[in-house]
């Protein structure tokens, strides 16, 4: 049973951080919401509105905005970090100056650090002394959550305490929180789906039909789980909300920035024009670059991702890419089921070169 007097810290004043703050504040918890600037915090406290990301919504009166990270850390046992991936390390380090190891830290950011291939919980671990860390990920479009439409998410952590705490604090009448211990898989699901949303945007723009969309999303799921398996995650994680759940939402929703990028490119705009028009970060573009390189290092087949890369960064045209994709070797449909039945070749090879 949640202690409603317990203060919850939210770091990051973007759309998802604000939607979560509102949801938790509405449940009755005092929320200390960290804003990067004193002006931003003061503006929120005066208006109770995040005019930039959730305009027109009056948020819970239990939320207090502050630019003082020490105050957030001192008051909160649970701190949810929700800042764009490009600023994540810098903010995490600042948070690291304030926490003492007793706090639970949860990332909601779906991103990957380009130079290190680190996911956000890994950055939290590196930049703070906290160990009880988790990731919250799933089909969670901020605007729908703020509008209190029913949805679900996944809290992933190795620590039962983190899972219990987040379920107690975050779940509510219109928001369900499921659990998983495969932190890396859950985070990776949130990262990879952005790339495939660009592909489904393209397909939607070309009005190729529902069969095409069904095949594309399913093969995207196969690629994602194959890559995750190679990275040490459980491919079955991708059957859950943080995998297929998030993939379907992002790949079909016009609210998804990445989907819109794909839609615009399919309508004849350049990548630069599409990005400029959306005006916000579309993480999928960076994801394509970073994951393509990693997949090549690991020797993982990711045909759709490679096709997107050749389209966006290598100057190939869409018909050529589509033709290539339709001509890749036809492998087993559900490869992990196949492997379980037949046994993966090389399973018993000892360590070292094989």
């Amino acid at each position, binding site marked *: 049973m949640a202690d409603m007097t317990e203060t919850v810290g939210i770091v990051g004043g973007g759309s998802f951080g604000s939607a979560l703050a509102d949801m938790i504040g509405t449940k009755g918890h005092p929320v200390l919401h960290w804003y990067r600037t004193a002006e931003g915090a003061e503006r929120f406290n005066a208006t109770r509105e995040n005019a930039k990301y959730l305009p027109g919504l009056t948020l819970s009166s239990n939320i207090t905005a502050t630019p003082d990270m020490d105050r957030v850390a001192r008051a909160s046992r649970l701190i949810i970090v929700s800042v764009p991936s490009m600023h994540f390390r810098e903010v995490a380090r600042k948070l690291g100056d304030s926490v003492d190891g*007793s706090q639970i830290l949860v990332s909601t950011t779906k991103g990957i650090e380009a130079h290190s291939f680190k996911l956000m919980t890994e950055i939290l671990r590196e930049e703070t002394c906290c*160990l*009880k860390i988790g990731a919250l990920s799933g089909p969670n479009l901020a605007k729908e959550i703020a509008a209190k439409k029913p949805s679900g998410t996944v809290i992933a952590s190795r620590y039962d305490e983190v899972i219990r705490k987040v379920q107690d604090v975050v779940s509510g009448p219109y928001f369900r929180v499921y659990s998983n211990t495969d932190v890396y898989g859950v985070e990776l699901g949130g990262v990879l789906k952005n790339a495939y949303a660009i592909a489904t945007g393209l397909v939607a723009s070309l009005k190729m039909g529902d069969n095409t969309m069904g095949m594309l999303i399913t093969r995207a799921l196969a690629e994602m789980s194959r890559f995750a398996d190679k990275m040490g995650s459980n491919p079955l994680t991708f059957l859950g909300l943080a995998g297929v759940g998030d993939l379907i939402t992002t790949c079909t929703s016009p609210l998804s920035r990445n989907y819109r990028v794909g839609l615009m490119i399919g309508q004849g705009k350049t990548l630069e024009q599409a990005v400029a028009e959306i005006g916000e970060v579309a993480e999928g573009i960076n994801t394509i670059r970073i994951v393509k390189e990693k997949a090549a290092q690991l020797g993982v087949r990711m045909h759709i991702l490679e096709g997107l890369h050749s389209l966006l960064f290598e100057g190939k045209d869409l018909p050529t890419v589509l033709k290539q994709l339709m001509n890749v070797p036809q492998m087993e449909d559900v490869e992990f089921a196949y492997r379980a039945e037949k046994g993966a070749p090389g399973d018993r090879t000892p360590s*070292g070169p094989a």
Partner: protein
Amino acid sequence: MNPSDIGLRLTREQREYVRSEVIRRTVEDHKEVCRRSKDLNLEILINDAVYQEQERLRSGKQSADDKRQARFWAHVAREFHQVDEAGRERILESIAAMYMDEIMGYFNPVIHKFAAKILPWGLKALLARFSPASFLKYLGTRLNLEENLVLTGPIDQIRELAGKATLLMTPTHVSNLDSVVIGLGLYQQRLPPFTYGAGLNLFSNPVTSFFMNNLGAYKVDRRKKNGIYKIALKHYATLSMELGQHNLFFPGGTRSRSGEVEQKIKLGLLGCGVNVYVHNLKAGKPDPDIFVVPCTLSSALVLEARSLIEDHLKETGKSRYIRVRSEYSRPMRVLNFWRDLQSMDSRIHMRLGEPLDLFGNRVDKDGVSRDAHGRPVDRRKYVELDGVPAPDNQRDQEYTRELGRSILAAFRRDNMAMSTHAVAFAAFHAMRRRHPQYDLYRALRTAGPEHAVPRAELLADLSRLLERLRELENSGSLLLAPDLKTAAAGEVLAKALEHFRSFHDGEALREGPEGIHSRNMKLLYYYRNRLAHYGLETEQG
């Protein structure tokens, strides 16, 4: 009481306390398991132990002690079905008591001092299964182990911390000689003695047994797989730490069979640390801290290399019965090994890593935990629940996993590449390049001069590898033996060939008219594996 005052010598009362407390906790643990489970009860747990122990005792030749144990288990087997729950509790107590009598060693500080002084002379005899009489005879032929053992790392800091906390030393494990070498290294540097669990095979002859029993070792029988034994062993280590005894155990659980630096860590005994820390905090002890000291051992040659790699290849991925008879039990092999150590100007390098707290943070000389950015960390906060220290098994297991990661990182950083490792690595990959279609097992059968690599080709590969190894050392990812830091590939190759000739009869690698080849690719693979997992494979083709 200052932890260092306790040392390894326990009074008769303390020994009796440890014994009875371990028995009590072992019984309580089992009762708790039964309370929590619908499917388990004491009868099932005892039945499992009886079955496993009788199976173990049936296989292989029985010693006198085995016969005594067989009688004990036959008695238990007759009794435990016929008694009530209270009777089964008494049987469980008697099992735990029997195990405790076997496990508990006895530390004698006089013997410890004596042994450490004469070890450089006596190691040869000690290891070569000589009788005590022969041992005395060989005391005169001193082997300069003192000069052949190089201990580096933050030694002053560790010595200081040993006075204000209980230390847990976690070494890499390649050879049965390791515990003896570590014991000597610690003594030479005036570091306190550590108690440790030594395999039963080290107690199998009168001389070794005499020293092991008196150097603070307790017995670990890895053939005993049943839960009662494992829990009693864990409680013994826990009690020992609670009493402030510095403990040593090999976190890999057993010697590295493949030759690789440990890639995985067993969390069982390591996990005792957090339990003890929480216990100490709750008990209000003035020095409640437990610090972990990773220790990485590196040497150009490994006494048991041949049998270890055989074991690895046969049993990959599975735990197995530990072979008692190996090179270790063959006097001539031991003598050759030590002769090589002497004549080749070889060194065993023992690197003590930076001390860690139980959560994987570095600990500075004042005993303050530091995060990755050097900021101080109040480690008590990790184990508090609502401001009070409290155990939480699931949480503490994860903390131990974090600690394990930090220990593995230290092993990797402090692993020292030797000439034999570098040359084996380059040669193994050059030989594999000749048969890219072969899988590992087939490649391991490509021994002989017909698979030789021309000297020039190997030297070119080795030069590239040395360059890469030096980069790794500069980035703090690995250590290089002094002779690898600047030497040309030709010198490194010559040194390695000399090592292999003197101890392995040139089987691992030798030079002939056809070029450089191996007569035992498995042995070459073993030495090559010390440099696995540094991303060097792709560069060598």
